[in-house]
């Protein structure tokens, strides 16, 4: 067993942080540790530690755990997401005082699981990391003070999750039985055509089903809008973004198996097309913002498939980049939702009326987020979508690309209604709590919006990172330094 401790610094740092949270959550009922005072700094430090480790590489634990560009890219994204989620949750009104340390501990464990997932290159390891990430999620979702809806959402998530993971495990056994290995690197050289290996293809489909559940891809999406709606706004921000990064990284790694033209690739493409169409059409009818975002994330899961089925390093890079864009855009929108609902209620579209007057910075940031989700330039959403379709064109799935662009046209309506309510409607006087308009809310929203716009205008550095990460998966050596734009 080879073990290189320097390559694990980001994970170890994170583990220490989570252990500290665990200690704090273990105290007696009277001990109310000041978690929210130090955790944002810790999360920020974890983010920077991960950034400094961007070039680490190595494989360890009998090669089941591989630190490479792809894993580091996603670890940076995940720790960034955790940082924002922690900041966002630190003003959560619907969390009971005594449960704060536990709440953050669970979020932390889930994130740690996702970080491990980013580096797992063997199916059983992937499964274990996935479980670590999932179990804490099951406990976090119902934590919304005295809310029946949250409990319902929690139950739904557990039931769906249990079935999906059971299927994944079942599929794993098929793959192992027919291909005699669980290492992705070895699986890559096996045949995945249905004619040669029917059992393996069925197994892989089931295993992917487990990932699709995390990603909320049609038809594994049914939990998604309900859970978003039931969970508190801050928890929904976590559920909407972070587990999807885990799913995307695994799919990116498995995408090397998916050569264009294989049955399984076509299934993926069809599911992607159905997912984006179904998600967008359902979102048109929503009035609850979190449900709307839930269906929108079903659509976005479909978009990501476009990059994965292209079977090129560029496609995988584009999917990874889009995953990052998705995380930042959604965190931005959820940040605003959480701040506008300063008493923790669920927001309807009408609650956004007149936001431009009540909280101009939030309204402007919401505009940036909504237009990024549509994929309008100059936002990172546009760049992500553009990279996706360029990488996928002429690789046998042109119809999928056309479906994607047509779907953007459908999607515009409901994202525009976010914008429309915030900017063009006047608010009626109401009893509801006013939006949080303080410096904390504005600064967070403003910085995320700036990131969305800035990366949209200068996507080159991050995109190169993603492309190089995609290349490493195909075993293409990447030289550091240079690269220019």
């Amino acid at each position, binding site marked *: 067993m080879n073990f290189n401790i320097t390559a694990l610094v980001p994970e170890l740092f994170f583990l220490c942080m989570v252990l500290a949270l665990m200690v704090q959550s273990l105290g007696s009922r009277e001990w109310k540790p000041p978690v929210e005072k130090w955790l944002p700094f810790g999360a920020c430090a974890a983010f920077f530690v991960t950034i400094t480790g961007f070039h680490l590489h190595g494989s360890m634990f009998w090669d089941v755990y591989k630190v490479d560009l792809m894993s580091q890219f996603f670890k940076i994204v995940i720790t960034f997401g955790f940082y924002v989620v922690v900041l966002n949750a630190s003003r959560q009104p619907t969390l009971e005082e005594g449960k704060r340390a536990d709440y953050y501990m669970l979020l932390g464990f889930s994130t740690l699981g996702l970080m491990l997932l980013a580096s797992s290159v063997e199916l059983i390891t992937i499964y274990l990391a996935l479980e670590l990430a999932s179990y804490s999620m099951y406990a976090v979702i119902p934590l919304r003070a005295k809310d029946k809806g949250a409990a319902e959402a929690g139950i739904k998530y557990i039931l769906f999750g249990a079935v999906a993971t059971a299927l994944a495990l079942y599929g794993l056994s098929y793959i192992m039985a027919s291909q005699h290995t669980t290492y992705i690197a070895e699986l890559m050289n096996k045949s995945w055509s249905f004619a040669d290996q029917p059992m393996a293809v069925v197994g892989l489909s089931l295993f992917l089903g487990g990932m699709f559940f995390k990603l909320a891809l049609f038809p594994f999406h049914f939990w998604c809008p309900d859970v978003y709606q039931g969970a508190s706004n801050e928890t929904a921000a976590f559920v909407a973004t972070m587990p999807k990064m885990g799913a995307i990284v695994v799919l990116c790694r498995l995408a090397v198996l998916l050569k264009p033209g294989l049955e399984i690739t076509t299934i993926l493409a069809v599911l992607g097309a159905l997912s984006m169409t179904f998600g967008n059409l359902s979102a048109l009818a929503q009035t609850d913002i979190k449900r709307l975002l839930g269906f929108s994330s079903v659509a976005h899961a479909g978009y990501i498939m476009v990059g994965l089925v292209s079977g090129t390093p560029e496609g995988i890079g584009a999917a990874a980049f889009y995953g990052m864009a998705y995380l930042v855009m959604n965190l931005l929108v959820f940040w605003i939702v959480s701040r506008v609902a300063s008493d923790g209620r669920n927001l309807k579209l009408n609650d956004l009326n007149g936001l431009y007057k009540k909280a101009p910075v939030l309204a402007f940031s919401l505009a940036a987020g909504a237009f990024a989700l549509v994929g*309008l*330039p100059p936002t990172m959403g546009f760049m992500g979508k553009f*990279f996706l379709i360029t990488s996928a064109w*002429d690789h046998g799935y042109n119809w999928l690309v*056309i479906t994607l662009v*047509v779907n*953007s046209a459908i999607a*515009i309506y409901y994202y525009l209604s976010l914008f429309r309510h915030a900017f063009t409607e006047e608010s009626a006087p109401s009893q509801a709590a006013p939006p949080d308009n303080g410096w904390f809310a504005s600064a967070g929203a403003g910085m995320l919006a700036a990131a969305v716009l800035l990366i949209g205008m200068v996507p*080159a550095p991050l995109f190169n990172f993603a492309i190089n990460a995609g290349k490493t998966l195909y075993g293409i050596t990447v030289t550091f330094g240079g690269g220019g*734009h």
Partner: protein
Amino acid sequence: MDFGYPVLTILIAFPLIAACGLFFLRAPQVVRYYTMAVSLIECLLAVPLMGFKLNADFQFVEQIDWVHQWGLQYYLGVDGISILMVLLTIAVLPLCVMCSWTYIGKREKEFHFCLLFMTSAVLGVFCALDLVLFYVFWEAMLIPMYLLIAVWGGDDRKYASLKFFLYTLAGSTLLLAAIVAFRVTGGTFSIPDLMQMNFSFRFQFWAFLAMALAFAIKVPMFPFHTWLPAAHVQAPSAGSVILAAVLLKMGTYGFLRFCLPLTPAASHYFAPMMIAISIVSILYGGAIALGQSDIKKLVAYSSVGHMGFVTLGIFLFNQRGVEGALFQMLNHGIVTGAMFMMIGAVYERSHSREISKNMGLGKYMPGFMALASFGFPGTNGFVGEILVFIGAFKQSLIIGALIVPGALLAAAYMFRVSLKMAWGTPSSASTWRDLNAREWIYLTIPAVFVLWIGLAPTPFFKVIDPSVNKLLNDFDQRKVAAVETEQPMQTAAADALSLLAEKE
């Protein structure tokens, strides 16, 4: 020509940067003066464009890598086709600020922000030589325009703005697919490079359709025109001015810049269809305009007709036709812009857009705008329209004969409105105040241009001629070379069928 600084980048970036400055201002009056100053500085910044050399090359070119690995470039330049549009856009900005001086009474800061943002985006569209950069500006322009209609528009603004947004965005999504296809097939996003390439007819066929849909909606051509009257009627007068003067031109500019040079064979193939649609637009727009009692609607439908002349001129593929189309673009911008400003001025007094409530304004309104609109000799409308006519008759007698009624209709509805509004019996106008100095200024400037272009169009010809010649030469060389016997529709159907058969 080198001015030691990037002329086009500054032109595009300055309004945007200046717009951010608006957030630090408070008093509405200060906001107006500030924006006015910004728009005048923008005009000054355009002075180096006078160094435009009279040839067909792209000039003031700037080229920087944007995303190297993906072949994206920040690539700007103007030629004879785009420079007039750039100048028109810049010239319209101060007029818009002036005509909304008292018209806009709420959220002035945001309004002027939208105006400046809009100007940046539109300039970007006309200057971009990289397909993706073009698309970025093309889409970025939607948001401020949407806001202009949705916030400061009339009573039905919600409907009109949504329709505008959905229509134009839906049209341009396929444009993005076409752009990507060009990259994958041609290997580059750079428009000048792509202009040198010969694509297969089948590729051109689909690329043309995808692009033409986006541009036809923007123009708007006949079956896709329904968003325009709604948007025009509801938009505030500055919004209508920008919409009429600049935005519609983006569609026809797209045809000239993309469809003809990039997909010549397909353009040739589809020309009969485009000509037919253009003729329908001319006749339909004119006929509907004749029946309107709402002045803004009337001008909106007349725009459909006038833009029909432009697309007709483009798809005639002869020198006179394309020159006429370019002139008509410029003139329609000036004339219709001016008409909307006048309507705005009238509306501020009568608070009605009905013709019957605005009669007898001859004292105030310079009537010859209407004359220019239907192409009275001596005004600029005449130059453009006569060129399209010459081109049409050159092409075929039938096309020429078919558009004559279009011109007659234009005369009819313009006479009707000017007769009633300028020389009718005053309904409520007798008590109104006269035009003030500001209104005189913003109405005189276009009037000067109307007469100048109408009486002495030579300098404008000198600017556009080399580029038009090059465009048509390229087109003639390549339209035949690439035509193949295959039928793209049938090929695609066969492909789809064989794919299905394979599955079963």
